[in-house]
């Protein structure tokens, strides 16, 4: 039973979905916002990390005596200064806790930290790195998953046969029988690249360990609670003796809710030296030594009827896990699940294998495996429609999820607006009329989760909590564990609080990003906060309002059948809104009534019995208009329309920002952000060679917001912002397919792939009569 009450929201919201300004505005546009990058503490030292030049090697000996003699160097730390704890975020599964950060025995990827120096200036710390001598025994290395599973491949982690790190299996229906029913079967192989999070603020931490055994860490992260728990584990400390402060965070995108080299090495150094130590990654370090989006190899076999009804799908996926697990196990699971979205499959089977290699570990990144899944699924579906001569929108539509649908054994879809999304995109396409000859439109549908039901972190706490405290002047302290990383979480929580309590947005002060003062919350990942933290805030505000109104009821003399409410700071009977009084008066009465104690409301949320993945799903269909120069293969994005269902939008400006921002990141995954590796080394670890989309390349991002109501979400809300990273790569691929007939199997798309595709197609067209990849029955 849920512990909060969802009521039918009033259609005239005072704060929700209005033009509310982001509440961190003044700090962020005036330079007052202090990020970890800016933090300076008294007596602080600067830390630098020495990194492995080898992809796979035993550490035989580390000699840092010369470094210690350099004037200004205060100390050096290596794996020997740690407890040697193998940590990981999947705490419930000890095998998957495989990373020491400062390894004791061996290194497994180029760039892995091996030693850390603390000095009185950054320059001296950097010089000291050159004075550390390390004896390595270089071991054979392997870089590709299909090579790493061979019998003679080097063993990267002891006990993991054939370097298979995690396997995942999802299945429903009788898949063999479902394939028997199919009248057309197609199989394709795909390759999905990695991607760098490229947060504008690189990894940064300032750790301060004091003689009373307490550790304070300023850290750029997506979950102060996770950092607190993980650091306690690796340092052998109590969680309560560690304070994580993350007031302003310069972006996360899925890369900052695990321990990184900055927080770990600065804490180990500080614990050794009893002085604050600051470590900030250079942009190059951020590229080579922070986990990336998971590269994947997909095999997809799909069977449909000639009229386009979906029958069966079978997918087999290998992911390049890199040297450690990170969040890669979850990416492996989610990619297989969202590969089925947003469609009904009578028979569906997914087998996923995550393989260790001696490369940069791969982990979660906005979309969490779904952008890869859609790259494959949405393109193959488009090709099937073309093979059968069917309309791609109609074919998708007839097979889509609907409200009430049960993904067998996995999820109940309680709200779904995808059908209207098809209508909106059809309208948009029609409005464009005939396109110029060098342009084409591609589509992609998808769906995404609003937070996960899993507790692999093994927390005993509610997934989200909130506390509302009302001051004597009516202002409100809202304490949340939800983490602001730029997505607008502080503002969204303030909006929900203000709407529920019945006050104005400027009455709310949000406290977040400090484990000393805020309740635990799993943090900003998996698109969970609007639904989960939002529900906790709503419950807390309802609790506070109920307590306040007790005093109003007591003095109102109202008949029991009448209800009071507060709206826009106005206490009134719902039946007679014109009669009432100011909320401020009620607050003062309540304070006196409670013996001078402020009213405190508490709220929390944990999903119970909500399927295997998520309590709620958002849906969308995206169309992208693409122009391609046939001579150079260069892509230009001209226009885009996304029809989107996120239930009830809460933060209007935030939603637009999330949609436009997600598009820019997804477009990068589609055609710009290539990460070439050679023998385990990243070839473009800088912003000259790693292509980021610029203001001159971003097209208009039109939005059609479909209104639905999600019963599990606060006021009917679902996620918005991560799901939107999923469709774009496939939409771009489909645009190219429609213009040229080429079927691109690898992303990000590079110009030479288009040019080669065109050449191949010209050759194929010449030798007409060659078999198509699909098998007709």
């Amino acid at each position: 039973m849920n512990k909060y009450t969802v009521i039918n929201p009033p259609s005239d919201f005072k704060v929700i979905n209005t033009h509310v300004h982001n509440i961190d505005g003044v700090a962020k546009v005036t330079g007052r916002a202090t990020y970890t990058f800016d933090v300076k503490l008294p007596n602080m030292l600067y830390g630098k990390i020495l990194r492995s030049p080898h992809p796979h090697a035993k550490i035989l000996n580390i000699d840092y005596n010369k470094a210690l003699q350099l004037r200004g160097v205060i100390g050096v730390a290596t794996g020997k200064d740690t407890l040697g704890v193998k940590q990981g975020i999947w705490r419930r599964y000890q095998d998957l806790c495989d990373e020491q950060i400062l390894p004791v025995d061996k290194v497994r990827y180029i760039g892995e930290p091996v030693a850390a120096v603390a000095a009185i200036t950054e320059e001296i710390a950097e010089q000291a790195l050159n004075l550390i001598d390390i004896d390595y025994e270089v071991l054979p290395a392997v870089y590709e998953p299909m090579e790493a599973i061979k019998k003679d491949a080097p063993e990267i982690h002891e006990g993991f046969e054939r370097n298979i790190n995690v396997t995942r299996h999802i299945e429903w229906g009788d898949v063999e029988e479902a394939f028997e029913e199919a009248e057309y079967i197609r199989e394709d192989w795909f390759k999905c690249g990695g991607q760098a999070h490229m947060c504008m603020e690189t990894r940064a931490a300032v750790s301060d360990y004091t003689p009373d055994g307490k550790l304070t860490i300023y850290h750029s992260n997506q979950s102060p609670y996770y950092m607190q728990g993980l650091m306690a584990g690796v340092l052998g400390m109590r969680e309560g003796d560690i304070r994580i402060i993350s007031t302003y965070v310069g972006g996360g995108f899925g890369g900052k809710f695990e321990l990184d080299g900055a927080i770990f090495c600065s804490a180990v150094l500080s614990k050794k030296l009893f002085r604050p130590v600051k470590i900030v990654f250079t942009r190059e370090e951020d590229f080579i030594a922070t986990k990336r989006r998971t590269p994947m190899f997909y095999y997809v076999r799909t069977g449909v009827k000639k009229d386009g009804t979906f029958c069966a799908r079978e997918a087999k996926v290998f992911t390049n896990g890199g040297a450690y697990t990170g969040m890669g196990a979850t990416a492996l699971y989610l990619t297989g699940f969202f590969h089925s979205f947003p469609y009904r499959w009578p028979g569906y089977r997914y087998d996923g294998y995550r393989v260790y290699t001696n490369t940069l570990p791969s982990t979660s990144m906005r979309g969490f495996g779904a952008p890869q899944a859609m790259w494959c699924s949405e393109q193959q579906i488009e090709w099937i429609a073309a093979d059968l001569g069917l309309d791609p929108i109609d074919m998708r539509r007839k097979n889509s999820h609907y409200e009430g649908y049960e993904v067998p054994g996995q999820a109940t879809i309680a709200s779904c607006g995808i059908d209207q999304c098809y209508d909106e995109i059809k309208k948009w396409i029609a409005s464009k009329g005939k396109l110029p000859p060098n342009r084409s439109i591609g589509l992609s549908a998808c769906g995404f989760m609003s937070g996960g039901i899993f507790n692999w972190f093994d927390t005993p706490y509610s997934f989200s909590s909130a506390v509302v405290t009302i001051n004597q002047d009516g202002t409100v302290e809202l304490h949340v564990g939800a983490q602001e990383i730029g997505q607008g979480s502080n503002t969204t929580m303030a909006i929900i609080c203000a709407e529920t309590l019945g006050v104005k947005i400027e009455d709310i002060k949000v406290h977040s990003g400090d484990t000393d003062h805020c309740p635990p919350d799993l943090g900003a990942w998996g698109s969970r906060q609007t639904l989960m933290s939002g529900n906790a805030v709503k419950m807390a505000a309802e609790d506070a309002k109920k307590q306040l109104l007790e005093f109003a009821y007591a003095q109102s003399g109202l008949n029991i059948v009448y209800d009071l409410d507060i709206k826009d700071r106005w206490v009134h009977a719902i039946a007679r809104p014109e009669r009432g009084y100011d909320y401020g008066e009620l607050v003062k009465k309540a304070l006196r009534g409670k013996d001078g104690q402020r009213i405190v409301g508490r709220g929390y949320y944990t999903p119970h019995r909500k399927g295997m993945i998520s309590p709620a799903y958002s849906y969308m269909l995206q169309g992208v208009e693409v122009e391609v120069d046939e001579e150079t293969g260069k892509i230009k994005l001209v226009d885009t329309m996304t029809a989107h269902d996120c239930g009830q939008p809460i933060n209007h400006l935030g939603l637009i920002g999330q949609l436009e921002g997600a598009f820019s990141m997804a477009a990068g995954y589609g055609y710009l952000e290539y990460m070439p590796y050679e023998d385990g080394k990243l070839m473009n670890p800088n912003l000259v060679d790693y292509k980021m989309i610029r203001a001159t390349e971003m097209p208009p991002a039109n939005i059609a917001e479909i209104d639905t109501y999600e019963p599990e979400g606060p006021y009917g809300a679902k996620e918005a912002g991560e799901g939107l990273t999923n469709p774009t790569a496939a939409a771009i691929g489909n645009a190219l397919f429609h213009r040229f007939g080429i079927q691109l199997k690898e992303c990000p798309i590079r110009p030479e792939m288009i040019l080669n595709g065109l050449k191949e197609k010209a050759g194929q067209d010449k030798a007409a009569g060659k078999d198509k990849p699909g098998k007709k029955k």
Partner: protein
Amino acid sequence: MGDPIICPVCGKKAKTGSAIDCARHMFGTGDKPHRQWVDAQGLSFIDLLIEQATTPGNKSYELLAEYIEKDAQKKAAEKKG
């Protein structure tokens, strides 16, 4: 058909209790005891896993299901005798 099959390693009845569901359960669990049982039948757990991943169809699960079925029949016969 016979009685529902329970896992010879951990005693669990997987889903419908069919041999193939039990095979799925064994691969899904993938821990040492389950792997050892598969290898003890003369199969290679890892090779079956890789075959499942790299070829279309369900051959690995079907093959393992056959062995699980045989083992269940053997146990049932031993009980009777």
